[in-house]
């Protein structure tokens, strides 16, 4: 499989000038918008996106056109939010989309907003991406000046305002209701669903939240058609996906490939294998919130929603974390449990307390103070958290925790018998 094969989203990645309006226009940019506003009704756009099979790239993989279809047709006011909070550990693809090609995202957002009849769109960018916020704001200003935003866009009678909103450091604002609440000027704590935002979201009005990568695919689909999009990928996982790859492989970075290719090919052709001296042990394939797989399991997987689910994990955000043999799985899960504990918004007891328990119990193991019952206790705490909370953050902590325990139990057991210094016994093993 050649690297150049499919460039639906990443055609301008790595180019020094791809972010400029002139360059984007010269390469066909904003033609999709002209075509849509001139020729298609909003519902026709929704139908085309449904037919394309495009699914949300933010984590849940929900069919995009179907979600848009939930917006009541008689709504007097609709809002569109682009989720550029990108805080899922292992994920850095939206950053590339905004850095190298902000106009592609902006054009996609305008068409998507038109489809759901929104007149105000927010791009919610995590606050840590300071330089990117400036870049996207500049691109939005260019789009206004060129008549792609504002009143009566391209003289077709459609109005859209676009606001670049800067986050301020909270993972939970990536959850769609947390994101909406954050823009209303409160803590970004999630709300109970239903009602779903498509019916009642920002200021109680229908609101669609989509990931950057999702909207970025929309202009291409409008120009080339749903069938051309479906020609990539598998029947249920249509199109291409950006994979953010981190870890000691030869080539890290963001790669666009059709959904459904074998991981083994991707690993060989794109990642170039592990760096010299490192051995491939495990992979968290869809961002830190999905179950870890062993290297052997990964080598047998295809990279699409269904295959990964069958293998016991999830495609998630496509944040592929490559774990070498030299890494200590107990230390890694401590890092992750610290993260979920730190980022729990604190509304739900199982999440607030559970993440604290998990984090403290692993800390105990690492200090050489673990006892055999602790591993069962870890499992029990997980059982008391999953599926019981307002948002899926608690599950997001449980999935890596349980899968680490299940697949790398020997490393946890060794911690009960040994302290951090291998070979020296833990307090329990010393009989204390």
């Amino acid at each position, binding site marked *: 499989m050649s690297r150049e094969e499919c460039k639906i989203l990443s055609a301008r990645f790595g180019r*020094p*000038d791809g*972010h400029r309006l002139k360059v984007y226009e010269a390469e066909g940019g904003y033609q999709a918008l002209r075509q849509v506003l001139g020729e298609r009704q909003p519902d026709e756009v929704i139908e085309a996106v449904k037919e394309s099979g495009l699914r949300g790239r933010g984590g849940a993989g929900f069919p995009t056109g179907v979600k848009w279809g939930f917006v009541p047709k008689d709504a007097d006011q609709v809002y569109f939010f682009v989720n550029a909070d*990108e*805080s*899922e*550990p*292992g*994920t*850095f693809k939206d*950053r590339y989309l905004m*850095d190298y090609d902000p106009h592609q995202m902006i054009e996609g957002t305008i068409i998507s907003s038109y489809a759901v009849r929104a007149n*105000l769109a927010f791009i919610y960018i*995590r*606050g*840590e*991406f*300071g*330089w*990117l916020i*400036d870049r996207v704001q*500049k691109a939005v200003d260019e789009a206004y000046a060129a008549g792609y935003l504002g009143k009566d866009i391209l003289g077709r009678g459609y109005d859209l*305002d676009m*606001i670049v*909103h*800067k*986050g*301020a*450091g*909270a993972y939970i604002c990536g959850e769609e209701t947390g994101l909406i609440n*954050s*823009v*209303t*000027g*409160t*803590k*970004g704590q999630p709300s109970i669903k239903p009602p779903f935002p498509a019916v009642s979201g920002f*200021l109680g009005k229908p609101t669609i939240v989509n990931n950057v990568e999702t909207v970025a695919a929309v202009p291409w689909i409008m120009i080339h058609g749903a069938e051309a999009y479906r020609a990539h990928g598998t029947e249920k996982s249509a199109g291409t996906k950006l994979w*953010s790859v*981190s*870890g*000691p492989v030869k080539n*890290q*970075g*963001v790669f666009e490939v059709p959904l459904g290719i074998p991981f083994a090919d991707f690993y060989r052709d794109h990642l170039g294998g592990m760096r010299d001296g490192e051995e491939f042990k495990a992979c*968290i394939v869809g961002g*830190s919130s999905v179950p870890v797989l062993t290297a052997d399991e990964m080598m047998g997987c295809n990279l699409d929603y269904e295959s990964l689910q069958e293998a016991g994990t999830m495609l998630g955000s496509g*944040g592929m*974390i*490559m*774990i*070498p043999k030299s*890494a200590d799985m107990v*230390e*890694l899960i401590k*890092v*992750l449990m610290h*993260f979920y504990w*730190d*980022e729990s918004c604190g509304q739900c007891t199982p999440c607030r307390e559970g993440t604290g328990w998990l984090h403290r119990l692993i800390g105990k193991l690492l200090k050489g103070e673990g006892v055999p019952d602790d591993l069962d206790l870890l499992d029990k705490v997980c059982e008391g958290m999953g599926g019981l909370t307002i948002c899926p953050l608690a599950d997001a902590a449980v999935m890596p925790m349980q899968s680490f325990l299940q697949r790398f139990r020997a490393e946890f057991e060794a911690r009960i018998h040994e302290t951090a210094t291998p070979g020296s016994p833990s307090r329990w093993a010393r009989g204390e």
Partner: protein
Amino acid sequence: MDHPETATPLELSEQSRQRIADIIDRYPTGQSALMPCIWVIQEEIGWIPPAAIDHLVDTLGVTRARVHELLTFYTMFRTEKPAQYVLEVCQNISCHVLGAREIIAHLEKRLGIRIGEATPDGKFALHGVECLGACGHGPMLQLGKHFYEYLTPEKVDDLLENLRKDVVPRADTDRHLEEDA
């Protein structure tokens, strides 16, 4: 209303005041304008002093509790004057497998402080933070609006040496400054 917190009035540039007016104009409600207005003040002053809270309450018509709610929930908002250079090192999983721990140990040694502390002269602070969306570029740290990536001990030394002279070197995310010039 009498504000007990107001010892000194807020000094804010005309430009920032204009930005705040524009935000109020564009956001649908006063409360929804709160977060971006906090940002305008912090971007100019570096933190949110008590007088800024009064200013926000008065201009946006939100409650004082609401302002405190945001200032305490969001980790990037600062209610105390920060060190001149706040170095925020990612400690999350990808950076961890790429050697963040060694980089942090090196920074601690060079600065003579532990993570979570500041140097007594107020020049540097060192923080451990969660994933910053630079996973394939780790180990990395954030300084202000920019990321320093693919860190090695040598690169850290170079950065610190420059900052000690108050030279902020080109960051890995600075590439567009040249392109846009």
